[in-house]
């Protein structure tokens, strides 16, 4: 029997929990031999409502695979993804619609993540047309304007196409596309890595502001420990598809890190996100 998703938990409680998630797949070679590949092994973590969890680790350690599993772009082999009191992996496609509205993934390469044939306005309106079809045309546009304002996206860009914007502008569009549907969880998969330092700091500040205003829960996937320290409340390290028992040494060496990790592999960072603001530099692209 279909049961509805439970309401959001209180602040500082887990909004999404991953339990013993494993992902295996077969890779085909030139000669059609199927080689088994293990992307994730027994990964468990909690996303706390209104907080940012940074997921760090070297390239190929399974960070992006985990992100894709969380938005159900990949079907895990084993484990559970618990959200709203239900295991997402057991939901039917119709029931998943609500979950897809709540959990959004922002990719590293925003240039290729936006349809080159659509205008920015079409890109931004599409999630609303899908997730809130009953919303009137006027209300839809108001939501779009609101999302643009939140993502510091100028309205003059709405008629343009992705290839007419700079990298930073496209990343703002990607963020606005997620915000327009009013998600509860934002997964940023190396979303700032391809940007220059100035744009990186602008987008990072934007995320901090959004988190303050809307209690957004973020999973910040990066290999940039500096950014992880700046943005995240907790840090989880991954290594070879598993949650690593020991956090990266560079995180331990910084003075603002608590020495005692909460669960295995999780490092809590003591900081006051209310007062954080990264230093912005003038951008050459904007």
């Amino acid at each position: 029997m279909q049961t509805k998703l439970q309401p959001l938990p209180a602040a500082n409680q887990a909004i999404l929990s991953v339990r013993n998630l494993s992902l295996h797949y077969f890779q085909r070679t030139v000669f059609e031999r199927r080689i088994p590949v293990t992307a994730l092994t027994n990964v468990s973590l909690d996303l706390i409502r209104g907080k940012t969890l940074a997921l760090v680790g070297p390239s190929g350690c399974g960070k992006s695979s985990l992100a894709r599993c969380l938005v159900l772009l990949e079907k895990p082999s084993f484990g559970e993804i618990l959200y709203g009191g239900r295991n997402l992996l057991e939901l039917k496609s119709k029931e998943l619609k609500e979950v897809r509205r709540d959990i959004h993934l922002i990719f590293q390469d925003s240039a290729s993540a936006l349809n080159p044939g659509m205008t920015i306005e079409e890109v931004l309106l599409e999630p609303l047309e899908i997730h809130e079809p009953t919303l009137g045309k006027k209300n839809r546009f108001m939501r779009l304007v609101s999302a643009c304002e939140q993502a510091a996206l100028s309205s003059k860009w709405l008629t343009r196409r992705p290839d007419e914007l700079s990298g930073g502008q496209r990343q703002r569009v990607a963020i606005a596309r997620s915000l327009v549907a009013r998600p509860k969880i934002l997964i940023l998969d190396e979303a700032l890595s391809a940007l220059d330092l100035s744009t990186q700091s602008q987008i990072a500040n934007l995320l901090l502001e959004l988190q303050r205003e809307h209690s957004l829960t973020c999973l910040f996937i990066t290999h940039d420990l500096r950014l992880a320290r700046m943005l995240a409340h907790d840090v989880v390290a991954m290594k070879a598809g598993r949650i690593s028992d020991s956090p990266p040494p560079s995180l331990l060496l910084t003075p603002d890190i608590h020495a005692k990790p909460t669960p295995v592999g999780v490092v809590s960072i003591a900081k006051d996100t209310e007062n954080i603001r990264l230093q912005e530099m003038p951008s050459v692209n904007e």
Partner: protein
Amino acid sequence: MKQLAVRLGQRLLLLVGVSLCTFALLSAAPGNFFDDLKLNPQISPATVSALQAQYGANRPFPERYARWVESIFRGDWGYSLSYHCPVGGLVWQRARNTLLLTAFAVLLAWMLAIPWGIAEALYKGGWVDRTGELILALLLATPDVLFALLLLLLAARTGWFPTGGMSSSDVTQLSFAQRIGDLSRHLFLPVLALALTTLPILARHVRSAMIGVLDAPFLIAARGHGIPKSRLLYRHALPVALNSLISLFGFSVGSLLSISLLVEVILSWPGLGPLVIEAVLARDIYVVVAATMFSAVCLIAGNLLADFLLYCIDPRVRTAQS
């Protein structure tokens, strides 16, 4: 507008080049229409010489070409030595039939190729894809002549379809609707033969274009935002895949016209095919040149149509050109 004028100018130069090459090659080929007359003992050499002089066959190449160009402006497109009439009217009468056949064949081929290619791409590696690829490989390996002959055999054995021509003998007594039905029955086999010939190439292009788009990051991102599969396919993937397919559409118009000549001969469709074969055998040079020019014009028109469609569909092309 300037772009259009430039493109039309380029295509006009191309047509001049095609006509010059065709003229030069036909002139360089050994023998001409009058050699057969020379073999006839009933025709004196003086008569043959007089005929050659009358039609300007003994003039140098540049003069003959200039005369031919002049005849284009009169609408004659040269004079057919076999049919004793201006080439323009003769070729156009047949070309209309060829165009009718090719238009329906292009339509049918694309109507089959698009869903076929999309289905294969969607189920890549599955049984739908493998079965589809096997059928396409069989179609690709079958020569065009064999297709036409098999369909002719089908028509002859079953009597379901007429074995040639484009109308029945009693067509004048039929009503308009019955005439359309009669034409459809006559069109069916040649159209099917042509469509099946090009189907494997088109379907494989559709498949590869769709596979390229279905794996694109923007489609994965859209899927992550909860966009339903049908919308992903028709709103996101297909318009992007159409770009490469539109270019192929222009090419398919021209290539089908070339293949149609053979099919027309075997299935006795009164198009350009039988006329061109007869003209080549009789060395009726102006008919061959006019038919070649017609093919070139169709190929160019197909490509221009593809450019226009691309301009209408892809906003990036419009942006780049403006």
